């Protein structure tokens, strides 16, 4: 009994000591970060799932690939310290970093690279971006620090693609367990995941490169915008790299404790149209819809002003971008005229299926009201992601939907067979094939401009706005990404100001 009392007393003191300890640490130089995130990852293996939330936790922090994408969207060496490309553009020879260890202490070498790439390409692979590896003919390992990848055809963006989260290098010993216990080579190692609440990681003392500035990073899942606002105000989280409530940004902009940075993303938000639909297969109807939409009102109403209007499926910050926003100006009269010309003068009824995120639901309501003004009646159907994938994406059973296409440089989706837009255009496919075989930067940009023109001309979808990335963080925090060239929260350069 006495022992028990002593022991619980000791435990109490220990707990008190711990509390005092953290308070003391807060006064000293802070070296931990709590980052808020909206969506919880389904698991933590970026090579086995499409969810962006996985990359937002592990990319560049826990896992690394041969190359990595930096904050400007450019390709940098990572596990490959350098590479050479053969004259015909088909053979890539990578020289690997030396002295790299996985978090479980095992060594990294060329065999791991071969394992990881073969695993991603395999028949029974569950990699969500198998297409990235489609050009690969073979992976060879002449020695422990060299990897030779031979391609079937020239792939202009191959190095960029190797920098995706889906192409990170995993070890054969730990690959199967990465979903719940991710073992990578990155500057942070995984500590634990409290499901539904947070993921914790800490600095990897044996990291091969420059050590991380933070000793500890906690990623806290806060799905609710109101709760996110409260958590920032209360100091429960230090930062939201992608803050979910544009309506509350004004408040943070006026608060000296916070930095607000509105960056760009790769997210083209579109009103997608079923180009095979009874009415929508007529380009005049699609153009009428484009004229009916007031992008500014959509951005103001749904995004509280955050977002950049776009006129085609392309990110405005990209060098090849062409501003096509004046192609279909907001003009209800013209929309009505075009509809009448197409034989829908007395009205048209379309379904509008909206996935869960608030940008889609809110934009949908504004779009529905604007379409109603030109005589197009929409039936809004709110769906969960599972249904959206099933009905819209796979079944193509829809007229209109609103979704943000967040993958970088994804204009190529318009050339895919059986893609949910049902836009089947030989001319555009030829354009994309030509792009794939072109390596010269200027020539590529010219082709990309042509592709943007073509999509606008055919009014394949109504292109609404480029998603903004409103970040809110403590003013003493530096190094977070403002823009989002890939979906990631790269914490390697994050630090507290002295």
């Amino acid at each position: 009994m006495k022992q028990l009392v002593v022991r619980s007393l000791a435990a109490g003191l220990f707990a008190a000591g711990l509390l005092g300890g953290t308070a003391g640490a807060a006064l000293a130089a802070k070296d931990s970060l709590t980052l808020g995130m909206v969506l919880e990852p389904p698991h933590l293996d970026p090579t086995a799932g499409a969810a962006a939330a996985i990359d937002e936790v592990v990319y560049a922090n826990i896992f690394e690939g041969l190359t990595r994408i930096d904050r400007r969207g450019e390709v940098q060496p990572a596990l490959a310290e350098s590479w050479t490309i053969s004259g015909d553009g088909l053979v890539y020879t990578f020289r690997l970093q030396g002295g790299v260890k996985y978090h479980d202490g095992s060594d990294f070498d060329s065999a791991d690279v071969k394992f990881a790439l073969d695993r991603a390409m395999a028949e029974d692979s569950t990699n969500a971006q198998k297409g990235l590896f489609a050009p690969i003919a073979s992976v060879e390992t002449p020695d422990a620090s060299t990897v030779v990848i031979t391609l079937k055809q020239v792939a202009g963006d191959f190095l960029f693609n190797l920098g995706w989260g889906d192409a990170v290098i995993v070890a054969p010993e730990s690959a199967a367990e990465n979903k719940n216990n991710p073992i990578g080579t990155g500057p942070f190692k995984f500590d634990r995941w409290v499901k539904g609440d947070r993921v914790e990681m800490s600095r990897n003392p044996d990291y091969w490169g420059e050590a991380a500035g933070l000793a500890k990073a906690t990623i806290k899942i806060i799905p609710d915008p109101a709760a996110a606002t409260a958590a920032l105000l209360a100091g429960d989280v230090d930062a939201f790299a992608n803050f979910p409530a544009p309506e509350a940004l004004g408040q943070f902009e006026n608060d000296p404790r916070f930095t607000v940075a509105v960056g760009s993303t790769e997210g083209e938000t579109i009103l997608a149209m079923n180009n095979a639909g009874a009415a929508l297969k007529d380009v005049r109807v699609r153009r009428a819809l484009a004229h009916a939409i007031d992008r500014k009102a959509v951005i103001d109403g749904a995004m509280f002003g955050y977002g950049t209007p776009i006129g085609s499926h392309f990110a405005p910050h990209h060098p090849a971008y062409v501003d096509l926003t004046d192609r279909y100006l907001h003009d209800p009269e013209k929309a009505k005229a075009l509809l009448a010309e197409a034989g829908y003068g007395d009205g048209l009824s379309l379904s509008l299926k909206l996935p869960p995120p608030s940008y889609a639901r809110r934009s949908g309501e504004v779009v529905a009201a604007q379409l109603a003004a030109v005589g197009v009646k929409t039936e809004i159907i709110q769906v969960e992601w599972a249904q959206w994938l099933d009905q819209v994406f796979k079944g193509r059973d829809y007229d209109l939907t609103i979704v943000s296409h967040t993958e970088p440089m994804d204009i190529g989706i318009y050339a895919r067979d059986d893609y949910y837009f049902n836009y089947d255009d030989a001319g555009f496919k030829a354009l994309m094939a030509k792009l794939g075989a072109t390596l010269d930067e200027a020539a590529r940009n010219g082709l990309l401009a042509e592709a943007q023109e073509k999509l606008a001309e055919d009014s394949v979808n109504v292109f609404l706005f480029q998603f903004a990335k409103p970040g809110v963080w403590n003013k003493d925090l530096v190094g977070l990404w403002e823009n989002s060239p890939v979906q990631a929260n790269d914490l390697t350069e994050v630090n507290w100001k002295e």
Partner: protein
Amino acid sequence: MPGDIGPGEALAPAWREYWMRGRSSAGFVIGLAVTALLVAVALVSLVWTPYQVDVMDIPVKLQAPSAAHWLGTDQFGRDVLSRLMAGAVNSIAVSLVAVGIGAGLGVPLGALAAARRGIIEEVVMRFNDFTFAFPALLSAVMITAILGPGAVNSIIAIGIFNIPVFARLTRGASLSLWQRDFVLAARVAGKGRTRITAEHILPNIASLLIVQMTIQFALAILAEAGLSYLGLGTQPPAPSWGKMLNEAQTLMYLAPQLAIFPGLAIMGTVLGLNLLGDGLRDLLDPRLRRLR
């Protein structure tokens, strides 16, 4: 349960007497007034609202209450008062049909169980037990997950969970009536079970059912609001009180009033209906009055 009433005078409603009694019950009067007001507002909104319900005016979004917009505007600049008025129609329609389904199927089932006993009764009562094993809200969430969200599907979800309520009540009340002398007399006279149920049983439990319908109506209003709040009920742009609350939650820092008015509407409606139900119970069955 109704008192000793003979077959001939089965609940011959002495409405004048009820009215005299009712006027003296404050709860009943308030309940009746609130319910009448709700119905009136809903009817008015069918022909007139201060602003068009769905028309957006984004430049004037999130305004506080003013002379132009008595209850302010929402995130799309729509008039909150107009949307609340139109939301009343939605709430009443969904709840009315849902309770209708519940009573329409539940009462015959309960009456059948009481009239036939045996295996039919056992099946009906097991079904009852079974539905009680699932929390109603959980089941409603699952039903809307299968059928997809929407007003019609939330009616079905709420309706299904009203069936056992009425079945249980009807069976319980009818069982004792079947032992009464006037029913036995009717059976001796050669009347069939269906006819006895229609002529003697149902009229005698009518008051009980009316009271229960009022209570269930109030519960249905709450359930519809809950489903809409979760995004499973009425779909936009149609206005619904629960949905308005859901949207208001993320805007609480900017426009707290948006989170207040729809809730007041729900609470007022439910309060009114409950008071009306209690009042009716007291009127129709004074013996219970002492305990309430």
